[in-house]
């Protein structure tokens, strides 16, 4: 007997949480085969599973390797479902530019924040790692981002974050963007000193911060 869409949502959510990529793909394929709505399956299934994984991360049940595997499962399911989204599902989203600041190539933390932002309904432009401050500003202007998210793991490259904020000020566009910072050596004190709008200690916190900075409500996913 065919599974109900609710059962498939649960299956998608569980397979993300339990780090099972193949299972996520199989469930997503069944959503398509049954003709159920792809958008709902992403929201109520895959994204919900990633939120549950984020919850376990906050509770220190899951750590970074587990979250990375969960996000692989989520994206694998997403790849199956995305071609089946209807045009009117693709709503206007809050736009974020994210990247690791120049001089640093550590990008695991940035990748996690990117995944969680996408899960939470942000449209993310990922510049990658070792990115000059000016490129963050250019890209943010270009795509009309609301938020610039900067990461670094190295004390030697922290100042690049300050350079982004300075450039925004110099160009007289500081108020057009919110700037959030994170990474190993970063602290609230540092964020305040360079004039960033917020600091998040980990990926889960970064999502709450991003939502509050752009004035977005909590995700509808249960």
């Amino acid at each position, binding site marked *: 007997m065919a599974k109900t869409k609710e059962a498939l949502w649960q299956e998608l959510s569980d397979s993300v949480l339990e780090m099972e990529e193949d299972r996520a793909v199989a469930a997503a394929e069944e959503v398509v085969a049954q003709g159920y709505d792809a958008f709902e399956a992403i929201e109520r299934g895959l994204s919900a599973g990633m939120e549950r994984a984020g919850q376990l991360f906050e509770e220190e049940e899951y*750590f970074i390797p587990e979250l*990375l595997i969960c996000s692989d499962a989520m994206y694998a399911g997403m790849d199956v479902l995305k071609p089946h989204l209807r045009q009117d599902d693709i709503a206007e989203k809050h736009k974020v530019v994210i990247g690791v600041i120049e001089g640093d190539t*550590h990008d695991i933390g940035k990748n996690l924040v990117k995944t969680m932002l996408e899960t939470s309904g942000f449209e993310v432009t990922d510049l990658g790692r070792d990115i000059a401050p000016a490129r963050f500003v250019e890209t943010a202007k270009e795509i009309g981002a609301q938020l610039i998210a900067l990461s670094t793991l190295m004390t*030697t490259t922290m100042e690049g974050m300050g350079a982004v904020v300075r450039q925004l000020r110099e160009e007289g566009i500081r108020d057009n963007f919110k700037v959030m910072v994170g990474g190993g*050596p970063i602290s609230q004190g540092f964020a305040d000193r360079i004039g960033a709008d917020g600091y998040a200690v980990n990926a889960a916190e970064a999502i709450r911060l991003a939502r509050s900075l752009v004035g977005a409500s909590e995700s509808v996913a249960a």
Partner: protein
Amino acid sequence: MSLSPKERLLDTLEKKRVDRPPVICTGGMMNAAIVDVMNHTGHTLPEGHFRADLMAELAADVHDDTGFENFGIPFCMTVEAEVLGSEIDFGSLACEPKIVREPYASTESVQFRNIGAMLDAGRVRSVAEAAHLLSKAHPEVPVIGSISGPISTAASIVDPTTFLKELHKKREPSHRVLDYVSDFLVEFARLLVDGGASAICIGDPTATGEILGPRLFSEYAVPYLNKVIDGIHAAGVPVLVHICGEMRAVKQYIPTLHCDAISTDAFVNLKLLKEEYPQLTTMGNLSTYLLEFGEPDKVSRHAANLVRDGIDIISPACGLSTSSAIGNIQAMTATVKGD
């Protein structure tokens, strides 16, 4: 008679009573070759990453200018990854070297190189030669050879995101790569000891509780750190281990490490750690944020607090920013020395 810096450090590591804690900075990920020192002496990076004589001169400059009671070499954590096959950007005066690209997409695709050949490659011999020059010229000052830990080294040759996932999904190849990397690290450390290093410091910033969590930390970080530590102990010198980040999730495993001292990040309350595990020799943990942005008075107060709390070895809490002010570092070392 007062202790020489080398005696004080080695006695501390042997848990003997000493007059006061040593104040050191190990090199490697805790590199103290800051811009202020290089501008003053003209012995500069990135050149000092390659030539043994320059490396030794710069390490001596750092010792003289900062007041740290050791020589710490090398000034980066890419010596290992380079000979294991990674492409390195050697950075600039102010910016430390970094991995441009990890050569292997997966732990399964790692090609095992001959360890003997790797010891003759890259900058390995230069670091050992610098240790030799320093230990001969200044026998009273400890040379600390700094190496990258097994988890960080493995994550410098295999794409780090994949590496972390494969700790779960591909355990057997993960163990094989870590074993290989650990074998190399032991031999590298032994060359440094042969050169004249008095102690080895292992910095393993990827092997943190925050990144790995307790299960993977105990399955991978503890055994391979211990394998490297045991190998170095067999060469006859003590080993310090630096663990980055918040340690709560893995605190219970810290006493199972075979090292002679444990160094932690600024978030960790070393006094409490010591109360909980009195057998530990603790090292740390003056905030590098404070050293970069603080004032000498405040640095001095924090250093005095660490001494008062009975921390065994006083040191920066993590990698120093190369733009840290020399005055702040001098305030730290002078306070500990009681100058």
